[in-house]
């Protein structure tokens, strides 16, 4: 039986950049635990000699020339931004 603790949930939430309320942490601990327990089903299978599949098609690296092209203009790129200043995205302070 896999167990997942509240501290683990808080750690993962931090990695995922999600602020969770204490109530959500409780609920998530239970639900993630259930899902991970269910996933333990996969351990019935011996996969030591099985190659993992990352991609279903037999595609190798797809290369293209590294050439500059017309794409979205700066003023358009800023059009949907929550905040902008002097033609750049504005964010809250990074350093305390």
């Amino acid at each position, binding site marked *: 039986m896999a167990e997942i603790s509240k501290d683990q949930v808080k750690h993962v939430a931090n990695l*995922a950049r999600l602020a969770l309320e204490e109530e959500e942490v409780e609920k998530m601990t239970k639900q993630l635990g259930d*899902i991970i327990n269910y996933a333990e089903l996969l351990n019935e299978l011996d996969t030591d000699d099985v190659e993992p599949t990352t991609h279903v098609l037999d595609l190798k690296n797809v290369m293209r020339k590294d050439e500059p092209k017309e794409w979205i203009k700066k003023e358009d790129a800023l059009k949907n*931004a929550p905040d902008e200043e002097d033609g750049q995205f504005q964010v*809250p302070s990074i350093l305390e």
Partner: protein
Amino acid sequence: MSLFDYTLKELQDKLHNKEISVSDLVEASYARINEVDDQVKAFLTLNEEEAKEQAKQLDEQLGENPSILYGMPIGIKDNIVTKGLRTTCASQILDNLNDPLYDATVVEKLKEEKTVTIGKLNMDEFAMGSSNENSSYQKTRNPWNTDYVPGGSSGGSAASVAAGEVFFSLGSDTGGSIRQPAAFCGVVGLKPTYGLVSRFGLVAFASSLDQIGPITRTVEDNAHLLQAIVGQDKMDSTSANVDVPNYSEVINQDVEGLRIAVPKEYLQEGVNPEVRETVLEALKQYEELGATWEEVSLPHSKYAVAAYYLLSSSEASANLARFDGVRYGVRSEKADNMLDMFKLSRAEGFGDEVKRRIMLGTFALSSGYYDAYYKKAQKVRTLIKNDFEKVFEDYDVIVGPTTPTPAFKVGENIDDPLTMYANDILTIPVNLAGVPGISLPCGFSSEGLPIGLQIIGKHFDESKVYRAAHAFEKATDHHKKRPSLGGEA
């Protein structure tokens, strides 16, 4: 009879003979939306002014040899980016994305074919869900009975076609999100082979599984819509360079001698007896048409749901990292530093199911758990893919139900993620293997809800899938039934 009860070919003839105009088609679409969408709730955004203007222009420009899709009213799932037309993925985090900067490749291709975009369709938030109950805006209802869900995540796409609000629509399918709602709503939905259709401009959920596909009332119209959107695309390096046949021609071949495999795992316990009986009836129909069928095994089927949730959630946790409140989307007003701004914007913008999957994926990819969960699931994916390849050595197509049950009631499964996930047990393996699958109507439950037949083919063998589907459709009348919603559909 509504205009949308005709086939594409019939409507193109009518357009050409000036019996109808593109404006008539577009007006019919909005009239129907006005009539029934307060019940069905399929649309998030309407494109009415632009669509009516475009219809006028198309009526003036109608030439000798228009595209077969000329002037046809289409609905687009809201995770497919449309330039200048609001695109939200049914999420609060994109609530203010009113002016997207580009068109998805499929939307560009449709513009070349001169379809008319009627509006954007509801879905489970970021395509995560099987009932449309995870939309942050509204719960789309099943047109056959509005107490029931339309399925998901492309619930709006399927319901809008079933309700006669648009002629056809585009959806996306990561674990069943086209086929399951098509089954629940009694319409035809295809998930193409991974790589057949460009994913550029499809907001990514799980990049190794996602595909865009057509939802229509008939198999032939489905083939026409697929034809318009396939092809390798410089903007999607995973799109494949393959020869594409003329689908609407190949579907007319009969199924004499077609070898059908029926996985015993797809008719086992957990599959509702009415669904099982209806599928067995369909197989009898195939026998009468000259095909043969045999029972086979896809022995790793029972592991597909667990592998899928680990893999798709892992990919989602990486893909959804882009929603950070910096470049577009909604930013929390409560934060006074950058890190809190990320965390609070995401906490306020994402719904419960999306958060749950981001958490699961982040956990499965995190240090110390990667091998045990993510890599293990990738290995099981190989076993599932091998199951399919083995069956296709001896058979042309695989046939079974699309879903274990007909549509369920709104609210019935919402509090239990694992029960909700089990809905996709028969569609998920197809995405893991990357092969094409279609759902088409094959009957109705005693409660009058549609039942879907799933036909699965080899990689890039959409032709045989369509051929088998078309032969069944021609021999039956299920696709001609209409929901009684708000009068005549």
